[in-house]
């Protein structure tokens, strides 16, 4: 069976995205949740790259560069928040933060 490379790439991106999603819902450790977000971002980036190679344009690769920049910014903000959370709660469990409910 010959699979079209675009289809294979898209499937891979989908699988990666769903894996990231599942892990973000399942894990409680907030660092792993941040990692899962990164996985989902990369899945989205992969989908852009595959699509741009399919259409033969560079737009998707430009978008991927944007995503990388955004991911870097997100990680820096995210890590700062995680540090603050740990400082306040002495734990990395995201469910513990539910006490901020209000």
């Amino acid at each position, binding site marked *: 069976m010959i699979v079209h490379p675009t289809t294979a790439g898209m499937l891979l991106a989908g699988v990666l995205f769903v894996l990231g*999603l599942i892990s*973000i*819902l399942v894990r*409680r450790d907030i660092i792993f*949740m941040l990692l899962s977000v990164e996985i989902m971002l990369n899945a989205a980036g992969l989908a852009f790259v595959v699509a741009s190679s399919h259409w033969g344009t560079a737009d998707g690769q430009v978008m991927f560069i944007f995503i990388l920049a955004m991911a870097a910014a997100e990680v820096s903000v995210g890590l700062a928040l995680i540090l603050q959370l740990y400082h306040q709660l002495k734990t990395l469990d*995201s*469910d513990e*933060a*539910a*006490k*901020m*409910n*209000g």
Partner: protein
Amino acid sequence: MFPALIPLIPFISALLLMAGWKRFSRIGVTVTGCGSIGLAAVIAIIIAMQFSANGEQAIVQHAGNWLEAGGFKTGFDFRMDALSVVFVLVITIVGFLIHVYASGYMHDEPDYARFFACMNLFVGAMLTLVMADNLLLLYLGWEGVGLCSYLLIGFWYKDPANGYAARKAFIVTRVGDTAMAIALFMLFQYTGTLSIPGILENSTHVWSVNDGMITVIALLLLGGAVGKSAQLPLQIWLPDAMAGPTPVSALIHAATMVTAGVYLIARTHTLFELAPAAQTITAVIGAVTLILAGFSALVQTDIKRVLAYSTVSQIGYMFLALGCGAWSAAVFHFVTHAFFKALLFMAAGAIIVALHHEQDMFKMGGLKNRLRGVYWVFLIGCASLAAIPFVTAGFYSKDQIIWLSWSAAGGHVGLWLAALLGALLTGMYTFRMFFLVFYGEEKTKVHHQPGNSMMIPLYILAVLSTVAGFIELPHTMGHVTLFSNWLQPVLPAVSVLHESLAMEWTSQALSALLALSGIGLAYAWVVKHPKGMSDFLEMPAIMWLRGYWSRGWDFDELYNVLLVRPFVYLSRINRRDLIDTLYTGLGAFMEWCHNVLARTQSGLLRWYILSVVLGAVAILSVLIWRIYL
């Protein structure tokens, strides 16, 4: 002199007394309270003399604008014509005498200033009522006197029964006032003005005689008059109104306010002439009321309630006269009634005070030699009320009504017979009261003699109750018509159908005979054969009848069953407000939704993510569905 000063002075003094309240000394209150009415009386007399000298040219003063909206304009217009001069003079002069009397009667009262403030306010409102040139101002005075009546009936507010009586008076008269307000709206709609001369002039162009609409308006006006003047079917409030201090009963519930209905009908007589049906109803109401109230007065034990029922009965005579078209006879009876009924009330007040606030006649008795002065003035008052021939004012005014109730254009034999029966009843209940109080054995010791401030007004009123009758004598006795001539410019002369001296003699002789036999019956009943009478009165059927009459023919119970209980029942089933339940339910539903949604705000990050994902999936599914399928 400005007519507007007459009501203004009592108003100003009422304001002063209200604002000053406890800062005034007792003397200060007396001088302000009585002096203002005295001053108003002097001004009224001066204006009346000017008015008379000018050939009875009506004086109208525009004292300011009240309302101005679009084409509608009404102001504080005061009018002095023959009719209002009569009322203003009676109100200010009798009012002044009652105020002087009250300064003695209420001497030990802690709320002395409040009493005089309310009394002055009342006089001001009453003068506004009778001097108003437009119906709106008249209505202002009309409601003003109702308010003061409420305030003064409930003057001793610490007793809940007095508060109840005050509310009853206010609510029952409100029924009539509502009818009158509707009549005012209709008059404005049809005639385009509220000015009284304007309405009277336009009415003859707008309506023909017996027009349906004018009959409705006249009946609504009659409703207002019936409420204020305590006539059938709204007479129930007046006997209870005796809860107020006695000077209040004398001023408001005998001499002035309760005759406002008579004034209203006399003032709008043109409308009633256009509606003969309404006029007949007026006469019938008067005739029925005077008999019912006469029977009730016959069996009362409280001296003030006898006088209250007798007031209802005498105003019945006035309504009878109005209904027969004998306008000036009604106003004449108002004048004499104001004198002798104020006299009787104040004399009764003197007795009540002398006996340490005892109002039960069966606990009085034998006071003839103990209260000499009061005995004589009370006798004069009773004689005038019972219409003893020739020497009393009451005879000339009542006799005129009795004669005209048959001979006038609107008269009828039935009305005449009712008036004669009323004369008999009046003689009986008046002198039953008189003999019970002054004859027989002494049952309660006299506590102290009434002072000069109480006795001098009584002497003056006793003189007035006697001589006031001589200004209008019937054809058979000299034929003096000073009073009806005076009213001629405002109130047309009565049209007499049966002009017969012999018949008039008969009517007069009959009414005199009936009044005297009523007195004789009372004498036999109370003084001569008290034992035999009490045996007769103890018979079961008579006992029942006495109870029935003394409860005022059970009108209270009737209204209780017909109106009060259904109303209370409705308000009880509607206590939780059925309509409001819908809105409360809507609110409760919203609150429930809020609680459900608030649950989802758990603070659990992963739940939020899941809901975002589910939302995204849902939106994408819908989009895909719309695009591809």
